[in-house]
């Protein structure tokens, strides 16, 4: 399986656009800038929702209103960050795929996604009971886990730059 993944990464690196990103002086930093802008939107909006989940800022209105306002921004940011990230990955796919912090970042992203799915399936069931009140323990735990996971995603992302 690892050999197939390695071959896939090698093939990706050889694609014309990947080669162009690798050889250009400005393309990689530009993609990185787009990635960081999109990531700050993702993290900033998610942290705002998570802090509300922890029970802070209750006088600022209903949880659902805040989530409705911010989560579209989160998704737009996430899609842009993913596209820019994938293009950066393609420029040195073999190196990144073997990089520990990169692997940790992908794992943390997966766990953050799972945490969100579980919260939406279970935690949001009785939202009517706590929409404008302090959230129950399960929602607080989901919020705390999300904060830690996203801090981890940013940290792992930053470490990629220092280890490749």
């Amino acid at each position: 399986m690892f050999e197939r993944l390695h071959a896939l990464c090698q093939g990706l690196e050889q694609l014309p656009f990947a080669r162009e990103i690798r050889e250009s002086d400005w393309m990689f930093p530009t993609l990185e800038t787009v990635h960081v802008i999109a990531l700050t939107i993702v993290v900033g909006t998610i942290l705002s929702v998570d802090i509300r989940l922890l029970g802070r800022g209750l006088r600022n209105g209903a949880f659902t209103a805040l989530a409705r306002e911010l989560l579209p921004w989160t998704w737009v940011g996430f899609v842009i960050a993913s596209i820019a990230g994938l293009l950066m990955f393609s420029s040195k796919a073999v190196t990144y795929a073997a990089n520990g912090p990169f692997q940790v970042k992908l794992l943390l992203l997966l766990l953050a996604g799972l945490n969100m799915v579980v919260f939406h399936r279970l935690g949001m069931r009785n939202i009517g009971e706590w929409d404008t009140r302090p959230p129950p323990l399960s929602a607080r735990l989901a919020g705390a886990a999300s904060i830690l996971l996203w801090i981890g995603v940013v940290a792992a992302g930053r470490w990629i730059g220092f280890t490749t």
Partner: protein
Amino acid sequence: MIESLCNWLAATPVSLAFQRWAWFVPTVQVVHILCVGVVFTATLRVGVALIAPRGSFRGVTELWRRLQPAVWTALSVLLLTGILLTITEPARELLNWVFRTKMILVILLAGLLGALPRLTAQPPVARASGVLLLTVGLALITAGRWIAYV
């Protein structure tokens, strides 16, 4: 003169200690990026609300009133982490024109945010302020990332 300041700063025991710790710069940068996330998300929310207000501009003032404690706290942490990064690598920051541009943009953003309650008084001024706020916010992050490449 700035060059000799950089050389002196880089040779201080504090800077040498920060340079020795391999984890120091990335850790401080992580805190810096998280705070950029807080400030930029607030800038985005306020900027969009100024350009396309839902109802009156009073809603924008109210939104800013709620966001400002977090924004000023994050800006303070950004200042502190920025100083730590500059102490660690003074020449990388102080001799770089992109870094200087970034500092001007930081002052501009802080000034715009500070003047926000007054900027919402007239709709055309408010809309122009929203566009300026978003432009400055985007330029700031762009400058921050390009310091490493110039």
